[in-house]
């Protein structure tokens, strides 16, 4: 037999399930965020802060990706919101199937906002659509301002970048101008929040952004339901 023309996306299976996740959550008016960063950038601390600020006004839950431990999930649980732990057993990213399974463990009727904390890695999670409404990349100033150039794909695909640990800026050689120049050369539509979980700088702005995105997405869904 000769050559067969197939033309199939290599990640077709992941994309199909991502679409299912997206539709499932859209039907229920749930806004999904996918938080990505390298290990130790402060994702879990930021999440704790966001939960603290948002849980009274938004029904929210968290999906925690972690290679082996349940430490982060325990920290989130202590904040009093539902959390589903995914242990990837060494795999370097979450995929849409894992999220699809995790969604079955949540009471979706009780939710408006769902945040995924991806596995700490700036490379692999960039490739896998989970069905999120937006990707948020967290970078801390101690990691250095060269990271957008070194890992451009994730900054290209994100809607928001959080520059965290701003309280430590003075102690590093992080060059803010170079950082913004590089970032905007990669993606000129990025929204950036400069934050610190210690001084609480930027946290109110970030939580306002999240709640406004949830509100806008729910208003859109409400409009659709009325038309249906």
């Amino acid at each position, binding site marked *: 037999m000769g050559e067969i023309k*197939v033309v199939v996306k*290599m*990640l077709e299976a992941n994309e199909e399930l991502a679409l299912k996740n997206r539709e499932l959550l859209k039907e229920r008016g749930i806004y999904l965020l996918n938080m990505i960063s390298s290990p130790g950038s402060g994702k879990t601390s930021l999440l704790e802060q966001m939960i603290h600020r948002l849980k009274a006004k938004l029904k929210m839950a968290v999906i925690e990706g972690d290679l082996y431990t349940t430490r982060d999930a325990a920290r989130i649980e202590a904040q009093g919101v539902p959390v589903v732990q995914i242990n990837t057993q060494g795999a*370097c990213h979450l995929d849409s199937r894992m999220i699809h399974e995790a969604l079955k463990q949540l009471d979706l009727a009780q939710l408006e906002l769902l945040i995924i904390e991806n596995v700490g890695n700036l*490379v*692999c999670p960039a490739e896998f659509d989970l069905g999120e409404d937006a990707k948020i990349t967290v970078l801390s100033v101690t990691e250095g301002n060269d990271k957008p*150039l070194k890992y451009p794909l994730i900054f290209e695909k994100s809607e928001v970048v959080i520059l965290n640990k701003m309280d430590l800026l003075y102690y590093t050689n992080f060059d803010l101008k170079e950082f913004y120049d590089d970032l905007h050369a990669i993606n000129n539509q990025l929204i950036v929040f400069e934050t610190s979980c210690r001084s609480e700088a930027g946290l109110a702005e970030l939580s306002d952004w999240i709640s406004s995105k949830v509100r806008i997405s729910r208003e859109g869904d409400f409009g659709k339901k009325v038309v249906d």
Partner: protein
Amino acid sequence: MHETSIVAEVIKIVLAKAREYKISKVNAITAKVGELTGVSPEALSFAFEVFSKGTIAAEAEFKLNTVKASAKCETCEVIFAINHVNKKCPVCHRFCNNILTGYELLIETIEGE
């Protein structure tokens, strides 16, 4: 190493297509990898060698063709080469988000007997 996960999917797709077309031995697979995908062709080839062992695609040649990244300016309609950090139209110098090529991760053809 997201390439290993990607290759695992490639092999699933190839084996399913082989069954569909009643191929008992896959000789060649051609694929397209866009420049912007962040996927290393070398790592894909290596992962393919490992993951295809023991399957009917074990001896297949995995041919990867790189696709150059390009964009089309919404204002001047010029098509030009881009990379991650340079997406400005060479004519009007506006930042361009209308990316045409560079994100491909496609299996194109399968050849077998």
